[in-house]
C-alpha cells in the first residue's frame, strides 16, 4: 500500500518537475535528486500534498567539487520515508533555507553552515551553533587542516 | 576597687546609643552612595528604638524596629534600587547650585534652632520615669476605646492610599 503510494508520488513529481528531478533507489530509501533551484517547490509539495511533516535529518556531504545537502523526510501519519538530495557547487555553496516549511530546519541548517560552510538563503539567523563565533573555517570540509595531534 | 553608680551606667549606655543614632543620621546625609545612606538610616532607626527601650517604652521600641527598621527602610532601599541609574556608586553628589545650598542651610538652621529652643525651654523630670507595667494593654485600651474612631479612620485612610497606589502602579487602561 505504502509502496504504491510512494511510486505514484514519484511518478507525479517527475511529471511536474521534469528534468530537474532524477529519482534513484537504494536498498533503504527512495532518493529524489533535485536541482537546487526547485528544492523549495519540491519540499512544499512533499509537505503539503504528500504529508511528509517530519524533517528528521538535515545533513551535508563534501564531495570535492560539489557539496550534497541531504534531507531525510518522514511522514508521521502514513509512516512513509523519502530522501531528498541536492547538489551545489563548492564555489557558491548556497541553497534555499527550508525554515519556513519546517521550523526544525533552523538549528540543523545552522549546524551545516557552521561545520560545512553552506549558506542557507533566507535563514534569519545564520550564525555558528556549535563552534565559537570567532572560529575560522568549517571543520567538516575535507580540505580543513586539523591542528594539533 | 572603683565603683560606678547605676545612674552613670545608664548614662553610658545612653551615650553609646545616642552616638550610634547621630552617626547613622549623619551617614544618611553625608554618604555619597545612596545605598549606604539607606543602610545608615537603618542604624538610626535601630538607635531610636534602643532609646525607646531604655525609656522603658518597649512596645514603641519593638514597633520602631518592626515598622521603620524592618519594613520602611527595606521599602526605601527597594525604591532606590528600582529607580536608580546605572552608576549606583555616586548618586548622592552634593549640588553645586548656591540657591539650593542657601535653602537647605536656612531650613537646617531653623530646625536646629527650634529643637534647641524646645529642649531649652522644657521642664524635664529630674529622675527617669518608672515605666508602666502593662503599657501594651493601656495602649490597646486607648486605641480601641477612647480613640477608636480616629484609629479606624486612619485605617480606612491607609486602605485608600494602598488602593490608590495600586491603581497608579497598574495604570488605568486606555481605550
Amino acid at each position, binding site marked *: 500500500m505504502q509502496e504504491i503510494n510512494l511510486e505514484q508520488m514519484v511518478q507525479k513529481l517527475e511529471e511536474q518537475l521534469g528534468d530537474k528531478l532524477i529519482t534513484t533507489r537504494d536498498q533503504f530509501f527512495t532518493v529524489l535528486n533535485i536541482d537546487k533551484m526547485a528544492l523549495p517547490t519540491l519540499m512544499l509539495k512533499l509537505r503539503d500534498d504528500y504529508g511528509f511533516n517530519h524533517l528528521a535529518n538535515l545533513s551535508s556531504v563534501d564531495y570535492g567539487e560539489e557539496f550534497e545537502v541531504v534531507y531525510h523526510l518522514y511522514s508521521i501519519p502514513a509512516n512513509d520515508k523519502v530522501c531528498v538530495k541536492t547538489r551545489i557547487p563548492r564555489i557558491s555553496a548556497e541553497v534555499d533555507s527550508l525554515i519556513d516549511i519546517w521550523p526544525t530546519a533552523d538549528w540543523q541548517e545552522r549546524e551545516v553552515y557552521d561545520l560545512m560552510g553552506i549558506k542557507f538563503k533566507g535563514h534569519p539567523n545564520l550564525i555558528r551553533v556549535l563552534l565559537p563565533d570567532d572560529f575560522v573555517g568549517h571543520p567538516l570540509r575535507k580540505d580543513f587542516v586539523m591542528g594539533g595531534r | 576597687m572603683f565603683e560606678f553608680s547605676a545612674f552613670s551606667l545608664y548614662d553610658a549606655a545612653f551615650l553609646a546609643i545616642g552616638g550610634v543614632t547621630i552617626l547613622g543620621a549623619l551617614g544618611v546625609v553625608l554618604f555619597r552612595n545612596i*545605598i549606604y545612606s539607606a543602610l545608615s538610616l537603618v542604624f538610626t532607626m535601630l538607635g531610636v528604638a534602643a532609646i525607646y527601650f531604655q525609656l522603658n517604652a518597649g512596645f514603641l521600641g519593638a514597633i520602631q*524596629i518592626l515598622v521603620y527598621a*524592618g*519594613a520602611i*527602610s527595606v521599602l526605601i532601599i527597594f525604591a532606590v534600587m528600582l529607580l536608580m541609574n546605572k552608576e549606583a556608586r555616586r548618586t548622592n553628589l552634593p549640588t553645586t547650585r548656591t540657591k539650593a545650598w542657601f535653602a537647605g542651610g536656612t531650613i537646617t538652621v531653623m530646625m536646629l534652632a527650634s529643637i534647641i529652643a524646645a529642649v531649652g525651654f522644657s521642664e524635664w523630670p529630674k529622675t527617669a520615669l518608672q515605666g508602666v507595667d502593662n503599657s501594651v494593654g493601656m495602649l490597646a485600651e486607648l486605641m480601641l476605646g477612647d480613640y477608636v474612631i480616629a484609629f479606624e479612620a486612619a485605617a480606612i485612610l491607609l486602605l485608600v492610599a494602598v488602593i490608590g497606589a495600586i491603581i497608579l502602579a497598574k495604570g488605568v487602561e486606555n481605550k
Partner: protein
Amino acid sequence: MEHLFTNLATALTGWMITLGLSPVWADVILLLVKWIIIITIITLNIIILIWLERKVSAFFQERLGPNRLGPFGIFQTIADAIKLLTKEDIVPSAADKLIFKTAPMFFIVVAVMLYTVIPMGQGMEVINLNIGLLFFISMGSLSTIALLMAGWGSDNKWSLMGAVRSVAQMISYEIPLAFSLLGVVMISGSLNLQDIVAAQDNIWFVILQPIAFLTYFIAATAELNRGPFDMPEAEQELTGGAYTEYTGMRWALFFLAEYTNLVAVSALMATVFLGGWQGPWLPSWLWIIIKTYGVILVFFWVKWTFPRIRMDHLMSFSWKVLVPVSLGNILLTGAGIYFCQWMGWC
C-alpha cells in the same frame, strides 16, 4: 536538677559580690556570661544540628550520610568547620566591599538577638521583656536587611535576584506570622513569653489554636528560607541566590545564622504553642530542648520531602490564603473568648 542553672547564676552573683563588686556590675557581668553561654550553646548546637540534618536527610533518602569521621560521622561537621575557616576568603572585585563584608555579621547578630527573650526554662531567660513576643518578631524582620545587603553587595545578578525575592517573601510572610501569634496573645492576655508559658499550664495552645499553629508553621518556614520556601537560596535556579559570591567563613556565617534562626524559631514555637518548658518529671530546661528539637525535626522532614514552590505561587499563597486565614483566626478567637466569658467558663 530543676534549678541547676538558676542556682548557678545566683551563686555566681553572690560570689562576685563577695569579691567586692557592686550588684550592678555583678548583674552586667552575669548578663555577659549569659551571652557567652548562649553563643557557645548556639555554636555547639549548630554543629549537632548540621550533623543531624545530614543524618535525617540521609534517612529520608535511604543513604548513609556522614559515616567516616568518628562514630556515626559526628566529627564531619567539625572537619567541615575547619575547612570553611581555612578556605580562601574571596571578595569579588566588583563587590561593594563594605556592604559585602558587613552583611554576614549583621545577619548573625540579628539571629543571636532572637535568643534574648526565649525562656529556656523556669525563670531562665536573658531578659524578661514584657513585650518579648513582639521583640522576637521585630528582630526577626531585621534579617531581611542582611540578605538585601548580601545581595546588593555581591554585585551579581543571581545574588540580587535572590535578595529581592527573599525580601519580598519575608515581608509578605511576616504579616501572617505576626497575625497567627495574635490569637495566642489574645488568650493569654500578655506578650511576655513567660506569661504565655504559664498560661499553658492546663492546655497547650496548639490545641486551642490549631489554625494559628499551622499558619505560624508555614509562615515560619518561609521566614527561615527553608524548603519548600528556600527562594533566596534556590540552588537549582539562582545558584545559591544571595550567598552565591560568599566563600569560606563569610558563607559559614550565613549558614550559622540560618541554623541559629531555625533553632530560635523552633524554640519560640515550642514556647508559644507546645507549652514551653512545662512538662512532667524532667527539668524544665530539658523539656524546652526536647520540644525544640521535635519542631526542628518537623522542619527537616518538610524540607526533605517537598519540591520548591514557585515565586508567584508563594506570594499569592501568602496574600490570598495565609493572611485571610490568620485574620479569620483572630476573629474566631475573639468570638471564642467572648463566648467563653458569656458562658462564665473563664
